[in-house]
């Protein structure tokens, strides 16, 4: 790493805010709206309302201790021969979600041992771990809503392509529109809400062979090492069942047509609203389809009459199949 510049002199520098901001306001704006891009349509300033802000453990959060002799009090016991052979976390592994959407977090864990001889025992064989051999059963547990740790997952992968997976969901935080028509609108965390986040606490545990000679890992020069690796990913929690939904530009899910559970695949080729063909709106961007969602833009809403109060019957032909959706505007 040479000549790494400070971002301060980069043209890409901006002050980070807790929200995604829009460009300079148009004095004709009167209100914000939810969208996937920052756009202005008429007097509505649409802002991105899918914002990701997820706290995850770093490598030091994944630090752990192996206590073959039961010497430490890290497990809350003090010296305790009955706790000999335990593995405990020494870092903090709490994940937190402050995103504007529910998220699914996936952690892929694997253990790397410099000697290449460490055996990783799975949960099914935990009670059969040979205390005289170079064996461990390293687990990761997640605390549930009741404050108890769920069943553990044993990490048995030794490389990225054999990693052990742990997946969990976290609820979204509360967001609100900020800014004004003069300075531009934003979408930001609502600071009036206390504890405006959801969290998932995790811990490392397990057992280590208590009678094996672990001196190679305690050497003062070139000690052997055991490291726990993790690669995380997160995305908006998939709405289940995946099906055809109709959304207006403000993000409102109006109708969830529950078909066989799979999002329809194919190209949107025809649309009718209240018996009138609106297929022309497809080319104009007034209506589009992607991943199970039929989306009407602001202009499409107006053009198709969906801004009028009442019940509207919508059909959408995707691939070779016509789907029926209903929207009631109050």
């Amino acid at each position, binding site marked *: *790493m*040479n*000549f*790494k510049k*400070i*971002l*301060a002199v*980069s043209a*890409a*520098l*901006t*002050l*980070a805010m*807790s929200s995604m901001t829009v460009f300079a306001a148009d004095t004709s704006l009167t209100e914000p709206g939810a969208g996937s891009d920052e756009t202005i349509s008429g007097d509505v300033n649409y802002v991105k309302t899918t914002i*990701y*802000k*997820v*706290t*995850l*453990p*770093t*490598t*030091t*959060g*994944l*630090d*752990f*201790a*192996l*206590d*073959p*002799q039961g*010497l*430490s009090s*890290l497990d809350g016991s003090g010296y305790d021969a009955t706790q000999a052979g335990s*593995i405990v976390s*020494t*870092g*903090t*592994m*709490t994940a*937190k979600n*402050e995103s504007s959407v529910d998220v699914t977090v*996936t952690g*892929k864990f694997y253990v*790397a041992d410099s000697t290449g001889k460490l055996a990783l025992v799975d949960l099914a064989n935990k009670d059969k771990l040979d205390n005289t051999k170079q064996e461990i059963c390293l687990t990761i547990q997640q605390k549930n809503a009741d404050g108890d740790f769920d069943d553990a997952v044993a990490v048995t992968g030794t490389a990225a392509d054999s990693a052990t997976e742990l997946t969990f969901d976290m609820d979204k935080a509360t967001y609100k529109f900020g800014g004004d028509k003069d300075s531009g609108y934003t979408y930001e965390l609502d600071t009036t809400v206390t504890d405006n986040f959801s969290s998932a606490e995790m811990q*490392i545990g397990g057992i280590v062979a208590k009678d094996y000679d672990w001196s190679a*890992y*305690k050497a003062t020069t070139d000690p052997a*090492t*055991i*490291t*726990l*690796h*993790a*690669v*995380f*990913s*997160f*995305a908006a929690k998939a709405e289940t069942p995946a099906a055809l939904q109709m959304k207006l530009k403000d993000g409102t899910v109006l109708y969830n047509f529950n078909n066989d559970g799979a999002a329809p695949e194919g190209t949107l080729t025809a649309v009718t609203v209240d018996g009138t063909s609106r297929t022309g709106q497809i080319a104009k961007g007034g209506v589009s389809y992607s991943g199970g969602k039929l989306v009407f833009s602001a202009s499409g809403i107006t053009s198709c009459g969906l801004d009028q109060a009442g019940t509207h019957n919508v059909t959408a032909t995707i691939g070779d199949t016509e789907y029926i959706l209903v929207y009631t505007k109050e």
Partner: protein
Amino acid sequence: MSDSGQSTNPPKPANQNKLVVILIVLFALLLIFAGVIIFLLTRPKPEPEKKPTGGRGTVITEENVSSVEAEVAEKETAGDDLYVTSMSIDWHFNGSSSTDAYVANAVENTRTVYFDLYLVDTGEIIYSSPYIPVGEELNGVTLDKTLDPGTYDTILVYHLVDDDENELSTLSIALTIYVE
């Protein structure tokens, strides 16, 4: 030649000789100065200390049990154990440039970070960001190379560094990028 045998060339004034000497000395000093500058600018920066790329497993012994327990007890806060990611996760590239790649170092964090973007298939780093201090953000990314159109699995590795640019911890995020 005159009758006295002396040269008819008039002797150079002493001041002119001094001036020549001064100029030569100054030129030599300038060359030395330029050489020093070039050396300083082109010498490789010492590689900052890198931490293990995973959580470290420490075997407890009678010799280290007190120090390990003290180290854990001294952690009043999560410190470098956690990092608040604030980023977009759908990165689309037109050639090598993306306008929807966004990474911020949230104000809740306490460390400057930079990140490397690796291709999973080859392990090649295709982008290394500048340092991003707390409270600042990076909008848009231009890769170090142009990839063929397609979808690529990458890993974005955040590196948390101290004031001396020594690495304290890392966080790896799997990210799919789309090259159009």
